[in-house]
C-alpha cells in the first residue's frame, strides 16, 4: 500500500488485513524492495497526488517495478486517474501508462461529487474484469472521471449522466474508480481477486491487449 500524504491507505490496509492478506504501508520506494504487488489508493486531487508521488521517487520506482518487471498493480479512485496521460484536475501531467485523459463531470446537470453506490457493468474479458459480479453496486466518490483513448483498456462502465470508465485493466495494471475497500463484501471479494491473480494470467491478458 503506497502511503502518501493525502491517501486513504489506512482504510485499504484494514480491508486487506480483514481478508487475511499480508500487506503493509510503504512510504518510500526504499521500504518497498521486497514487495511483489502494489496498491495505490487515493483521495484528494490528481495534481497533489502526482506531486507527492514524484517527490518521494515513486514515479521512477513504479515505472521500473510495474511497467518493467510486471508487478501486479491496483489503482483506487485517484489511483486510477493518475494512470492516464493528463488530468484536468489541477492541469496535472500524470503517469501516462494508459492513453487518455481525466475530465470533470458536467456540473449543473448532475450533483457533483458523484457520491454513493452505483452499478458497474463488465466490458472486458481481462481476468480482473471477470472477477466482477455480473450485477453489483460499488461505492463511488468522484468529481472527475477517466476518458480512456483505447477502448480495450475499459474493463467496466458506470452510468452517471453518461457512461464512464469505472474499471480499467491492461495486463498487470488494474484500477477501480470506486473505493474498493468501502464497497462492502463485493468490494472485498474483488480486492481478494486482485491479490490472487496469477502473473501468468496477467501476462496472457497483456498479450491479448497488445
Amino acid at each position: 500500500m503506497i502511503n502518501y500524504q493525502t491517501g486513504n491507505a489506512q482504510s485499504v490496509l484494514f480491508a486487506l488485513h480483514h481478508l487475511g492478506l499480508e500487506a503493509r504501508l510503504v512510504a518510500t520506494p526504499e521500504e518497498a524492495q521486497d514487495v511483489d504487488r502494489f496498491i495505490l489508493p487515493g483521495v484528494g486531487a490528481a495534481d497533489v497526488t502526482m506531486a507527492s508521488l514524484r517527490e518521494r521517487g515513486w514515479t521512477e520506482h513504479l515505472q521500473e517495478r510495474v511497467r518493467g518487471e510486471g508487478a501486479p498493480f491496483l489503482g483506487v479512485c485517484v489511483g486510477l486517474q493518475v494512470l492516464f496521460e493528463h488530468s484536468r484536475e489541477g492541469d496535472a501531467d500524470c503517469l501516462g501508462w494508459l492513453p487518455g485523459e481525466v475530465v470533470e463531470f458536467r456540473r449543473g446537470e448532475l450533483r457533483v461529487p458523484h457520491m454513493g453506490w452505483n452499478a458497474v457493468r463488465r466490458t472486458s474479458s481481462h481476468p480482473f474484469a471477470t472477477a466482477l459480479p455480473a450485477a453489483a453496486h460499488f461505492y463511488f466518490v468522484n468529481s472527475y472521471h477517466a476518458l480512456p483513448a483505447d477502448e480495450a483498456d475499459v474493463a467496466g462502465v458506470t452510468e452517471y449522466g453518461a457512461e464512464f470508465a469505472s474499471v480499467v485493466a491492461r495486463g498487470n495494471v488494474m484500477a477501480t474508480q470506486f473505493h474498493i475497500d468501502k464497497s462492502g463484501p463485493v468490494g472485498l471479494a474483488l480486492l481478494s481477486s486482485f491479490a490472487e491473480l496469477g502473473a501468468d494470467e496477467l501476462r496472457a491478458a497483456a498479450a491479448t491487449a497488445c
Partner: protein
Amino acid sequence: MLTTRVIACFDVKGGRVTKARRFQDNVDVGDAAEVARLMYADGVDEIVFYDITASPERRRADLETVRAVAHNVFVPLTVGGGVRDLEDMHAVLAAGAEKISIDSMAVRNPGLITAGSKEFGRQCMVLSMQVQRVGVSTAVPSGYEVFIDGARVATGMDALQWARRGEELGAGEIVVNSIDQDGTHAGYDLEITRAVADAVRVPVIASGGAGTPEHVAHAFRAGASAAIVSSMLYSPRLEQNYSVDDIKRSLSEDFGLPVRPTTEAASAH
C-alpha cells in the same frame, strides 16, 4: 444508476452508543464497534458516528473507537465531533474514517471547511447543520435558523444561506438535521430538506425524525441523496424497529426508488 443511500447514524459517548431524545435524556444502546458491525452486516450503505462529548470536553473524537469501528466496517465511515484543525482531521482519517463531519466548529471557523477541502478533497468534508423553524424574518429569510453546541445556541444565521456558503467554502455534502423533528419519529422536515437540495449542487443528507420506511422515501422524493436513520434501526425506546432490508425493500417495492440490495451486502466477506 446511482442508488439512494441509507445511512445509519449513532451518537457515541465513551465508546458506547447512546440514544437521546431531542438532544437530552440519553439511554445506552451498546458497544460502538459492535453496533457498527451489526449495521454493516445488516446491509447499511454508510455509517456516521458523532462523538457527542468531544466538543464540550474540548478534545478530539475518540480515536480508539474510530479505529475499532473502522476495523469491522467496509462501507464509508464518517466521524464528527471535536474536529478543530487539520491535525485533528489527519488523526481521524488515519484512524480509518472516510469523511469528516463538522458542525459547530464550521460556524465558529468557516475556514476549516476550506482548509479540509484543499487538503483532503471536497468529498471528505461533510457540513452538518442543526436547523430549527423560527419563522421568516429579515435575518432569517428561509424561516430556518442554524443552531450549534448540541442545538442549544442560536447563531442568527439563515439555514439556506449557510448551506450555500458551505458549498462555496468547499463542503462535499450537507447534512440537514431538523432540531424540531429529531427524536420524534414523525418524519423528516421535508420543507427545509427540499429547499437546501434545490439551493446546492452537492449531495444533501436528510436527518432527524425518521420513524418508518415511508419517511425515508419522502426524503428522497424531496431531493435528498441520502437519509440518516438511527432510532428506527435500534432504539429500545421504539415499539417497532426496522431492519435495513425492511427499509430498502419498501423504498424499492413501494416507492420505485433505486437501492443497493442488501443481498449484495451478505457474503463470506
